[in-house]
C-alpha cells in the first residue's frame, strides 16, 4: 500500500506530531497509524522536519518593547478620528446650505419690514379713529406699559401717560411713513420710533 486511504487522518498528522490534538482525536490517529504504513512514514518525516529548527536568533525583548507605539487612551471629550469625517462632511454640507440660510434671512427681513409697515399703518388708522390711547389696541405694548408703570409709579411726584399718534402733526406722521418705506430691515441697530413721554401733574397710573 503506497497511499493512505483515509486522507482526513493524513491531514491530522502534523497536528498529531505537534501534540495539538485533543485526547480523543489523538487516539483515533494512533489507531489509524497502527494500520497505515504510508502515514507511519509521514509521521517519521514530520518528526524530523519539526526537529529542523534554525539556530535561535538573539532578540532583545526590552528593545523591541521600547520601540513599540504606546497605547492611545480613549478620550471621550475629544472628537475621535472616526468623528472627523462627519465634521468635514458637515462643513461641506453647511457650506452648501449657506445660500439657503441667506435666502431665509432675507425673507425674514422683508417679512419684518412688511410687518412693521402694517403695524404702523394700523396704528395710524386706530389713532385717527380713537385719539385717546393705544393701550387698548396692542396687548404686548399694554403689558410693557404696565411693567414700566409699575417701576415708574415708585417715582414720587411724577405720573406717566403715553402719548398717541394724535400728538404728531401730519408732517411728522408722513416723515415716519417715509422712513418705514425706506427701511430695508437690515439694520437691527436702528432705533425704533419712540412715543413721547409726557409728564402730567398729579394722579397715578391706573
Amino acid at each position, binding site marked *: 500500500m503506497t497511499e493512505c486511504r483515509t486522507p482526513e487522518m493524513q491531514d491530522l498528522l502534523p497536528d498529531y506530531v505537534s501534540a*495539538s490534538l485533543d485526547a480523543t482525536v489523538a487516539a483515533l490517529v494512533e489507531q489509524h497509524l497502527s494500520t497505515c504504513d504510508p502515514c507511519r512514514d509521514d509521521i517519521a518525516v514530520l518528526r524530523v522536519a*519539526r526537529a529542523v529548527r*534554525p539556530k535561535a536568533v538573539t532578540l532583545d525583548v526590552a528593545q523591541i518593547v521600547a520601540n513599540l507605539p504606546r497605547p492611545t487612551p480613549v478620550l471621550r471629550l475629544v472628537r475621535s478620528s472616526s468623528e472627523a469625517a462627519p465634521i468635514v462632511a458637515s462643513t461641506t454640507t453647511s457650506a452648501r446650505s449657506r445660500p439657503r440660510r441667506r435666502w431665509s434671512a432675507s425673507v425674514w427681513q422683508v417679512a419684518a419690514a412688511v410687518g412693521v409697515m402694517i403695524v404702523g399703518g394700523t396704528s395710524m388708522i386706530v389713532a385717527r379713529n380713537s385719539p385717546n390711547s393705544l393701550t387698548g389696541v396692542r396687548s404686548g405694548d399694554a403689558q410693557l406699559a404696565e411693567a414700566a408703570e409699575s417701576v415708574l409709579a415708585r417715582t414720587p411726584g411724577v405720573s406717566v401717560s403715553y402719548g398717541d399718534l394724535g400728538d404728531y402733526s401730519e408732517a411728522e406722521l408722513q416723515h415716519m411713513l417715509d422712513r418705514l418705506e425706506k427701511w430695508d430691515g437690515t439694520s437691527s441697530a436702528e432705533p425704533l420710533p419712540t412715543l413721547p413721554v409726557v409728564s402730567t401733574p398729579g394722579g397715578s397710573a391706573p
Partner: protein
Amino acid sequence: MIHAEQTDDASVDGALITQWMAGDERAATAIVERHAGALARFAVRLGVNGDVDELVQETFIRAFSALASFRSDSSLRTWLFTIERRLVIDRRRATARRGREVDIDDGHAATEYDALDALVADEAAQRMASAIGRLTRMQREVFTLRVQEGRSYKEIAEILESSEGAARVHYHNAMRVVKEFLDD
C-alpha cells in the same frame, strides 16, 4: 478536532491585548515574549538571514500600531505571521527593484533555504533542510507553517492570503517532494 493549545493562546493573547489597550505596558512585554521566537524562526524559514531581529521588531511595531483593529476571530500569532510575511515580500520586491536580486521565483527556493544548512545539528536534519530547500516558495511556506509552526489550514490560508484548499494541496505536494528527496 480541537486545538486546545491554540484556543488557550488566543484567550491569553486577547486578555493581554485588552490590558495593553487599557495602558498596561507590561502586557506588551508579555506579548513580545510569547511570539518573538516564533516570528524569528518563521523569518529564517522564509529565507531571511541577516536582519531577523530588525524584521521581528518591525513586525511588532506594525502590529501594535494596528492592534486596535485586531479581531480575535484569528489568533494573534497567525496575524503576526501575516504581517511578517508581507514585510518579507515587500523587502524582496524592494531588493528586486534595486537590482540586487533579479527576481523572486520558485527557482531560488533552494538558495534562500541554504542559510539553514549551517544552522542545523545532525545529518538527518541537514538532509531535511535540503529537502525543504527543494520546495517552491509557496510549498515551503505552507510546509513550514503546517509542520513546524503547527498552524491549521485555515490559518495558513489567512497568512498566505489564499484558500484552505490551496494550502492543503501545497502541503501534500510538499510532503511528496520531501519524501522523494529523502528516499533518493
